[in-house]
């Protein structure tokens, strides 16, 4: 996949706690929601890292941190070895050009009062040096054509397009500044399955042609498998397992990953009969008050006293050398 390539983005031990406050005039902090709690990974040029996990595990907060839309409680994000949270204004403007985002919901991510031309052209208005004024309309039309939309429709409004087309508009907007990295926050989860495939194909085509690196956040395991070179599995604000697509899907060692994979629907009825379904008990604990030690222990069938006392580090395991955070990591074949 992409082993020896140049690292473009490095996330180091990043955490974001949201305060829970009480009172209006005299606010007192009564707790914290640990949305993201010490996540590290890196991203190479042209690579796709998938991030999967249940709702509320901190995937979107992670995306917003990488976009510098939130300020972290601790930790750093390095873009080409420069900490994005320590950047002054001018460097930040350049950063904005290099990291762009595709939003989850194409129905609310486009301003209903702006034409498609204005939406896709807005990045040019903010970064005026990218495209001279007279050139903008043509550039926007090129982008429309590039993502498979009719350039004639430049003065239409978003409500005149379908969901898949709207997501293409969102992608065109993200491409406008020719970024190196695109953070895709659940880019297809609001779309019909047939449209999902089209959008995924478009993203793959763009990656091949433009050498983009993606951080692809989703809860749909098969979509992530399809597009990712490497996959990180998140649970309650932490990465519990990270590895190549083959390692995560073929040789998962963390019980949470195994449980997630076993829940993927299998279309083949004979294979379904033999599959090994792991049913997790209970709900995800509150991120305001995560369990001590291993966060997954409250729902884990392997939990022993050590899991309460000691947090398992994210390290290479004996069972398989990719990183996994479990005291009792072992291979278990769950899906074909």
């Amino acid at each position, binding site marked *: 996949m992409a082993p020896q390539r140049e690292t473009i983005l490095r996330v180091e031990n990043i955490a974001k706690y949201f305060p829970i406050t009480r009172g209006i*005039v005299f606010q007192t902090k009564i707790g914290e929601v640990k949305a993201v709690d010490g996540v590290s990974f890196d991203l190479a040029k042209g690579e796709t890292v998938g991030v999967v996990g249940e709702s509320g595990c901190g995937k979107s907060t992670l995306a*917003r941190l990488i*976009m510098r*839309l939130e300020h972290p409680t601790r930790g750093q994000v390095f873009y080409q070895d420069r900490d994005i949270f320590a950047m002054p204004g001018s460097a*930040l*403007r350049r950063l*904005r*050009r290099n990291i*762009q*985002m595709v*939003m*989850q*919901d194409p129905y*609310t*991510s*486009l*301003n*209903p*009062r*702006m034409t498609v031309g204005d939406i896709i052209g*807005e*990045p040019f208005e*903010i*970064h005026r040096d990218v495209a001279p004024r007279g050139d903008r309309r043509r550039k926007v039309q090129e982008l429309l054509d590039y993502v*498979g*939309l*009719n350039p004639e*429709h430049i003065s*239409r*409004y978003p*409500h*005149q*397009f*379908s969901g*898949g*087309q709207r997501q*293409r508009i*969102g992608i065109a*907007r993200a491409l406008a*500044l020719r970024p190196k990295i695109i953070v895709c926050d659940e880019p297809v989860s609001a779309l019909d399955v047939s449209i999902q495939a*089209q959008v995924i*194909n*478009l993203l*793959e*085509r763009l990656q*091949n042609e433009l050498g983009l690196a993606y951080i692809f956040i989703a809860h749909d395991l098969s979509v992530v498998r399809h597009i990712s070179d490497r996959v990180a599995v998140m649970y309650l604000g932490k990465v519990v397992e990270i590895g190549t697509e083959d390692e995560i899907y073929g040789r998962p060692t963390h019980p949470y990953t195994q449980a997630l994979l076993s829940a993927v629907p299998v279309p083949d009825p004979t294979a379904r009969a033999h599959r090994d379904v792991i049913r997790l008990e209970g709900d995800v604990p509150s991120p305001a008050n995560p369990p001590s030690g291993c966060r997954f222990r409250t729902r884990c069938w392997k939990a022993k006293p050590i899991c309460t006392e000691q947090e398992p580090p994210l390290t290479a395991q004996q069972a398989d050398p990719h990183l996994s955070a479990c005291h009792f990591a072992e291979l278990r074949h769950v899906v074909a």
Partner: protein
Amino acid sequence: MTDDPEDRATPGAGAPIAEHRTRTRETIGILLTNRLSAFGLVVMGLLIFTAVFGSMVAPYDPTSVDIPARLSGPSLDHPFGTDNLGRDVFSRVLAGARVSFQVGIVAVGISLTMGVVTGLVAGFYSGAADAVLMRAMDMLFAFPAILLAIAVLAVLGPGITNAMIAIGIVYIPIFARITRASTLVVKEELYVRAARSVGASDLRILRRHILPNILAPIIVQTSLSLAFAILAEAALSFLGLGVQRPTPAWGRMLAEGRDFVNQAPWMGIFPGIAVFVTVLAFNFVGDGLRDALDPKQKSVIESRGRAV
């Protein structure tokens, strides 16, 4: 992987293509399907015409005194009768429309500008700015409107300009609250986040992304506030704090008519009707706009229109 030609989506497929009408025309169209707001629009049109061209239509000079003809009842010469100085009430009512509109528009202009700016800042920045600004608005709001206007006029002194300022100040909190509430909703929209991630400045986000999307409730409130402002102007003039003689204003005419209620009821009745009809018309239009600009309502009305 390459895109096959099938993947090339044809825009419009599966998407409800709106008829090629502008939003404004669409809104007026919906307004006209509602009888009350259609009535309001017609009356509003007549009033605006009167305010602009009233002096040309009026049969008499609204300030010319004709003592021999004083207190004569409605007749062909004087459709609304004459007042205690023999001035033509009809001409005065027409002239009063201009004053009412002038005060209404300037006063609402003041509240609109101040209120929208306050609301945008409070809603967008929240935190301390929000707390301070909105508590100030609450204090303004806590006074009964007329009382506050009287207090402002007591400080500034009576007169038409000061009346506009006073009424303008009184209605700032309404606009501030509506704007703030809508801003709080819209600023969480994904397209605002998208603009931010492109590097848009706060000013740009407020101007291009938030303001256009919160206009609907503000437009509705503007229409309703015009009615309030005209009513408030009439009340202040009635109390002698607004428009000064001899300029004809509906409120003043009511006050003067009060002394002659038994001998010449038309002196008070006609300006009273003028105030009543104007306020009613603006309220109908405001209510109609509320329905027309609410997307949920719109679909109901549109589907009803199609069914017929």
